[in-house]
């Protein structure tokens, strides 16, 4: 009896392993395809059946992509925009959530409701009016135009507030007894106790801003102000279907920063997004 059960369990595990491997391959092939395509010669790309392992890697594809469109500029734009937006959001979220939890003020529930209700307004509805506002301010093709309209935080405030509510009161009171003011509390107590939430916050907003497409597309119209995602779409347009090698090389360059972030911070991303979703 037990022996047969062992066998069944063993076979079951093999079967499951095979399925998991299949799923992994299916999900992974597109990533493999862009990574290898980036270093294929055009001749290798345009043959059928496709070549799975490029024979001699064409690093020149990257150079060509870099020269076909102003990639360095796209990267600078994306870095400044993402860093600026995320930094502002982090400060705003921390301060707002701190005020909502630790400052004794009437009507803070109302303020919290006002902030969170913003989550219900889809960016779809704000797109055209925000474009008009930014245009009227003369902010088209500027960093402030790319950053300020997307820097308001709602979800982040919610995230920090939920965490702050779990912080031990005794510790905060003790710090206050030691003569800590509110800024001191934030710096020496609240922030050190919020590291995991802050990492989650940073990763979520970092990914969202780096990948954002619609707002940069609308808020800029000159090539030197485009961000990486918009720039990659442009690269595809100008190189058309005649020159896939450099297109895939450029695409890979656009993907790399987030892939690196993902590999480094995978643990926190997975925990943050999975756990955050469930608690919320």
């Amino acid at each position, binding site marked *: 009896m037990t022996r047969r059960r062992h066998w069944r369990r063993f076979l079951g595990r093999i079967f499951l392993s095979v399925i*998991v491997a299949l*799923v992994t391959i299916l999900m992974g092939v597109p990533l493999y395809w862009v990574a290898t*395509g980036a270093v294929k010669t055009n001749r290798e790309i345009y043959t059928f059946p496709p070549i799975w392992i490029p024979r001699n890697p064409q690093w020149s594809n990257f150079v060509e992509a870099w020269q076909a469109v102003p990639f360095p500029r796209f990267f600078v734009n994306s870095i400044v925009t993402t860093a600026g937006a995320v930094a502002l959001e982090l400060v705003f979220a921390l301060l707002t959530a701190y005020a909502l939890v630790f400052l004794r003020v009437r009507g803070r529930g109302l*303020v919290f409701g006002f*902030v969170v209700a913003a989550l219900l307004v889809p960016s779809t*509805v704000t797109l055209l009016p925000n474009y008009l*506002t930014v245009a009227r301010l003369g902010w088209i093709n500027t960093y402030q135009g790319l950053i300020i309209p997307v820097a308001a935080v*709602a979800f982040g405030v919610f995230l920090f507030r939920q965490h702050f509510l779990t912080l031990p009161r005794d510790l905060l009171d003790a710090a206050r007894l030691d003569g800590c003011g509110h800024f001191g509390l934030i710096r020496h107590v609240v922030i050190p106790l919020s590291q995991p939430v802050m990492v989650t916050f940073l990763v979520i907003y970092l990914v969202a801003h780096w990948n954002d497409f619609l707002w940069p597309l609308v808020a800029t119209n000159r090539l030197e102000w485009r961000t990486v995602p918009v720039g990659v779409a442009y690269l595809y347009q100008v190189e058309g279907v005649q020159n896939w090698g450099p297109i895939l090389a450029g695409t890979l360059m656009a993907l790399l920063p987030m892939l690196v972030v993902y590999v480094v911070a995978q643990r926190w991303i997975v925990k943050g997004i999975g756990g955050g979703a*469930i608690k919320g």
Partner: protein
Amino acid sequence: MGRSVDVVEQERVAKLATPSGSRELSVDLRGRLGDWPLFVLFVTPNLLLLIVFTYWPLLYNAYLSLMQWDLISPVKLFVGFENYRFLLEDNEFREVFRNTVVFTVGTVGGTVILGLLFALLLDQPLRGIALARGVVFAPYVLSGAAVAVFWINMLNPRFGVVAQVASWLGTVSPNWLNHPQLAMVAVILVYVWKNVGFTTIVYLAGLQRIPQELYEAATVDGAGIVERFRYVTLPQLGPITLFLLVVSTISSFQAFDLIKVLTNGGPVNATTTWLFYIWEQGFVAFNAGRAAAAAVLLFVFLAVISFLQVRMGERRVSYD
């Protein structure tokens, strides 16, 4: 008024009485206003941005929807509900609506069902499971525009991966992105590939929170693997499924970059979804009023859908 002042005064006295409050209240002004000045200082920047770039646009968008305007001329022509009437009677918009429903059902259904299956698989204690999880979730953090570009290459009927798969299956790959029906299928496929990692991760977190005793109890009662799934796993995942349905529907309605790069809404209008239509009306056709009206309708529609999902879900889902 008098009473509220009394309350403030009482609180002040109470604070003074406690040792922790005594230091803070050494400044008189602070004592009178409490934490108000600091509260305002902390909250105002974010609130201002929310007002200017979230709430005001909501109102302004509603105003624009009553106008006829090309975004350039100094005068906006008031046309009442003409834009709404046009949209509700327009054949093209009806097609856009239909596309949106197909896209939403396909992407939400695809990501939620596949996500559950993937999570069940990836929850198994197998060798290399961490790698599998890593690969499944990776596409979710990537730029939709970049993803679309390399999928165009993969979907190429002459030399793409998909052509290879088709030939393994003994057929020839159709020209997915130029096909009036298959273009939508392809866009949904790419969207599901990119986003299924999210639903998987959320389901995984949910699975790991199901108390082990429930399974043990079910096994003692003679439940097999199917019964355990049916009577323990599924009900326990109910609230998460509801959450995923609502969130996935909302993000599906906001899909833009994939569609813009993969098909640009085409061929003809075959993959023009609601948001894409709004963008096209506003920024290509310069028809601000119609874009705004479509945006208002989208907002209302999405709110109703979310509400219905939560209502119907709550009847089926038990939270404990």
